[in-house]
C-alpha cells in the first residue's frame, strides 16, 4: 500500500518534469530497463565521459527535429565496454578509442565495420589556474607528480604515448598518478593536489580550476577519435541509426565543433592505427600491499581503539554521544565521502597536509594515504568490538581490584585489559578484514598508484577496465576472499575465547 502511494507520487513528480508530449515512464533501474520495456520510445546510450557535455546537446537537437528521447550513461569507455558485453540492453555506444570498439566488434556487441569516427580531441597539459606556465614536454620533468587517467582508459594510454614520443616518459614514469578517468585527473589538478596533468582539451576548457599550458602535437600520439556504433542488442535499431546519422550530419557536426571538438572526415578514419598497451597490474605487489596497508591500519588503530572503546564502555561524560557518533560515522558514510573529507584535511594543499609533506610524510598517493584511509574506515568496527569486550567485563572486578590497593591505572592493566584481551584481538581481526576490503576512501585519498596504493581491491577495479584482465582478476579475487575469510574466522575464534575468559563460575 505504502509502496503504491509512493509510486504514484513519484509518477506525478516525473510527469511534472517531463517534456510536453513525451510519454512518462518510471525507471527504477535507469541503466537497464529502457530499450526492452519501451521499444522505439527512448534510447539508452553508453558514452565516454568526455562526451558528457556534447552528446546531450546533440540529443536535444535531434529530439526537436522529431527524434526520440535519449538517456545516457557516461563512464570510462573501458568500463562501459565491459558493461555493454555483460548486460546488453543499450542502443548505441560512443567510445573514446578504436581498440575498445574493435573489442566490442569481435564479441558481436556491435556489428562489424559499422563504427564511425564522429569527433576528435586533443591532448593538453593543464596546471592549476594560478600556477606558473610551462610550454614544452621537457618541462614536465620538474614536477613531483603528474596526473593521468587510468592506464587502460584511452586518455591515460594516449597520454603515456605522448610522453614516450616526446622522450620524457622514462624520467617521469614513477611520478605518474592515475585518476580513474580524465575527470579524476582533472579534479586533482584543479584542487592543487597534483601540480600538472594531461587531459583532453574539451575537459580542460570546461574546468575553471585549471588552465591549458600547452597542447601535444597530434603526431606525438595516436589520434584521439570518438567512435559511434549501434549495439546489436538494440530494440530500436531504426531510431538508433537515425540518431547516429544525425550526429555526423551537417547540423550535428556544427554542435560537435561548437563544443570544442575537432571534426574528422569520415574517409580518413578507416586506416588509423590503435594503441594496444593494456597492462596487467602486478598481482603479487597488490597482495603484498594490501596486507601491508591492512596491517599498518590495524597496528595504528590499536591504541585509539582500546582508548576509545574503554572510554565509551566505562565513562560517562559530556559529549559522549557526539564522540561515539563521530567514531562510528565512517561505518555508514559512503567511503568515497570519507576519502573526500580526509583529502580536505590531509591533502597536499591543506595546512596539516603540507606540514606532513614537509616532514617527509606526504599523504596523497602514498602508502601512508592508503593506510590512513583503511585506518579511518576500519576504526568503527575496531572500537565497537573493543567497547563490547570492556562492557562484558563485570565492573565489580575493577572495584575489587581497587579495594585491593590497585589505583585505576594499575587496575586497567592488571584486570580490565587482560580480561578484554581476546575481544581486543577480535576487534583487530575485524578491522584488518575491513581494511583489506577498503576501496572508496583509498581511491580518493591515495589514488590508484601501482606499487604504493594499488591494493587488491583497486587492482581488481583496474583489471575490470582491461579486456585481457579476466584471468588475473580471479587470482586477486581468490586472494581477497581467502584472506578476508581467514580474518573473519580469527574474529570468530577470538570472540568465543573472550566469552570463555569471563566464565569464571564453572563450578557454581
Amino acid at each position, binding site marked *: 500500500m505504502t509502496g503504491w502511494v509512493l509510486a504514484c507520487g513519484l509518477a506525478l513528480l516525473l510527469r511534472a518534469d517531463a517534456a510536453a508530449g513525451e510519454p512518462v515512464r518510471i525507471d527504477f533501474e535507469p541503466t537497464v530497463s529502457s530499450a526492452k520495456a519501451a521499444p522505439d520510445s527512448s534510447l539508452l546510450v553508453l558514452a565516454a565521459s568526455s562526451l558528457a557535455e556534447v552528446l546531450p546537446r546533440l540529443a536535444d537537437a535531434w529530439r526537436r527535429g522529431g527524434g526520440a528521447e535519449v538517456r545516457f550513461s557516461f563512464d570510462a569507455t573501458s568500463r562501459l565496454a565491459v558493461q555493454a558485453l555483460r548486460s546488453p540492453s543499450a542502443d548505441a555506444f560512443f567510445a573514446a578509442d578504436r581498440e575498445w570498439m574493435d573489442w566490442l566488434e569481435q564479441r558481436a556487441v556491435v556489428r562489424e565495420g559499422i563504427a564511425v569516427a564522429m569527433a576528435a580531441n586533443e591532448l593538453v597539459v593543464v596546471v592549476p589556474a594560478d600556477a606558473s606556465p610551462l610550454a614544452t614536454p621537457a618541462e614536465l620533468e620538474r614536477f613531483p607528480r603528474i596526473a593521468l587517467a587510468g592506464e587502460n582508459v584511452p586518455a591515460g594510454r594516449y597520454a603515456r604515448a605522448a610522453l614516450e614520443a616526446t622522450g620524457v616518459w622514462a624520467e617521469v614514469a614513477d611520478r605518474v598518478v592515475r585518476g580513474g578517468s580524465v575527470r579524476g585527473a582533472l579534479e586533482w589538478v584543479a584542487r592543487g593536489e597534483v601540480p600538472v596533468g594531461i587531459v583532453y582539451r574539451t575537459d580542460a576548457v570546461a574546468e575553471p580550476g585549471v588552465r591549458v599550458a600547452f597542447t601535444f602535437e597530434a603526431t606525438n600520439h595516436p589520434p584521439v577519435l570518438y567512435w559511434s556504433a549501434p549495439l546489436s542488442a538494440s530494440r530500436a535499431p531504426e531510431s538508433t541509426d537515425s540518431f547516429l546519422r544525425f550526429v555526423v550530419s551537417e547540423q550535428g557536426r556544427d554542435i560537435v565543433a561548437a563544443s570544442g571538438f575537432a571534426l574528422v572526415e569520415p574517409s580518413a578514419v578507416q586506416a588509423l592505427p590503435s594503441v594496444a598497451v593494456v597492462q596487467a597490474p602486478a598481482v603479487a605487489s597488490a597482495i603484498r600491499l594490501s596486507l601491508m596497508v591492512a596491517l599498518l591500519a590495524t597496528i595504528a588503530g590499536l591504541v585509539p581503539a582500546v582508548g576509545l572503546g574503554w572510554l565509551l564502555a566505562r565513562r560517562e561524560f559530556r559529549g559522549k554521544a557526539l564522540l561515539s557518533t563521530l567514531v562510528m560515522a565512517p561505518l555508514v558514510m559512503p567511503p568515497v565521502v570519507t576519502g573526500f573529507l580526509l583529502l580536505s584535511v590531509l591533502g597536499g594543499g591543506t595546512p596539516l597536509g603540507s606540514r606532513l609533506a614537509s616532514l617527509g610524510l606526504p599523504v596523497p598517493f602514498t602508502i601512508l594515504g592508503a593506510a590512513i584511509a583503511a585506518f579511518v574506515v576500519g576504526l568503527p568496527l575496531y572500537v565497537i568490538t573493543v567497547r563490547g569486550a570492556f562492557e562484558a567485563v563485570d565492573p565489580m572486578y575493577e*572495584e575489587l581490584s581497587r579495594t585491593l590497593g590497585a589505583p585505576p591505572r594499575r587496575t586497567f592493566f*592488571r584486570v580490565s585489559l587482560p580480561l578484554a584481551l581476546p575481544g581486543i584481538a577480535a576487534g583487530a581481526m575485524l578491522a584488518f578484514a575491513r581494511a583489506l576490503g577498503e576501496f572508496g576512501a583509498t581511491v580518493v585519498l591515495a589514488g590508484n598508484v601501482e606499487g604504493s596504493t594499488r591494493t587488491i581491491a583497486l587492482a581488481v577495479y583496474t583489471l575490470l577496465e582491461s579486456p585481457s584482465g579476466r584471468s588475473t582478476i580471479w587470482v586477486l579475487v581468490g586472494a581477497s576472499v581467502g584472506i578476508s575469510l581467514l580474518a573473519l574466522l580469527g574474529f570468530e575464534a577470538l570472540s568465543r575465547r573472550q566469552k570463555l575468559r569471563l566464565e569464571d563460575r564453572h563450578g557454581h
Partner: protein
Amino acid sequence: MATDSSYRLGLDFEIPLASKTMRVKLDTESRAIAIVGPSGAGKSTILRVLAGVERRARGLVTFCGQRWQGDDGPIVPPWLRRVGWVPQEVLLFPHLTVRDNLGYAGPSAAAVEETARLLQITELLERRPRRLSGGERQRVALGRALLAKPKLLLLDEPFSALDRPLRAELARVVGEWCAERGVPLVLVSHDEADAEVLAEQRWHLSDGKLVRE
C-alpha cells in the same frame, strides 16, 4: 583481645535504592558488628559505601576520625582505604590462578602459603577459578581479602556456600584472625549462627532504616 579504645566507625548517609531512599545512621565503637535484615534491604550497599566503590551515597563515613566519605561522594578512594571487602557475589579474577588471586594485593609468598593453610585451600593454589566449587571460591576470596592487610574487614555472607561443620570452623578462624590483629569487622549475614559467633553487636536493617538490636 587486643583492644584499642580509639576505634570508632560512624555512618550518616543517604543513598537512593531502587524503591526508596535508604537512610543509614550508625555510630559504634564495637570491633565486630553484624548487619542483619531481610534480603534486598540494602545491606550489601552499606558495605559498598564502606569499600568506597559506591558513588551515589551522600553523607558522612568516618573511620577512626578519618573522613572517608563526604556530602559529595567518596573522599578517600578505595585503593587507599585498606578494606578487605568480600562481596556476596564472589568474584575471583578469572585470568589468574588461585595463588595469583591470593597474591593480588602483593603479600609475600610465605603469607600466601600460610593463609591458604589456614583456609584449607593449599591444594587449590595452582587452579583456575573456573575449576573451583562455590565453597572453595568463597574461601579464596576471603583469603585474598585477609592477605591485603586490611584495616577493616567487610564480609558479605562469607560462608553461605559452605556446609555446616566447615562453616562453623571458618567463622572461628576468621574471628580469631581479627582478634589477634585487632582488625575490626563488619559482617552482613542472615545466618544467626554466623552473627552469633562473630559479632558482639547487631544492627537490623529494614524499611530503609538501620536500628541497633
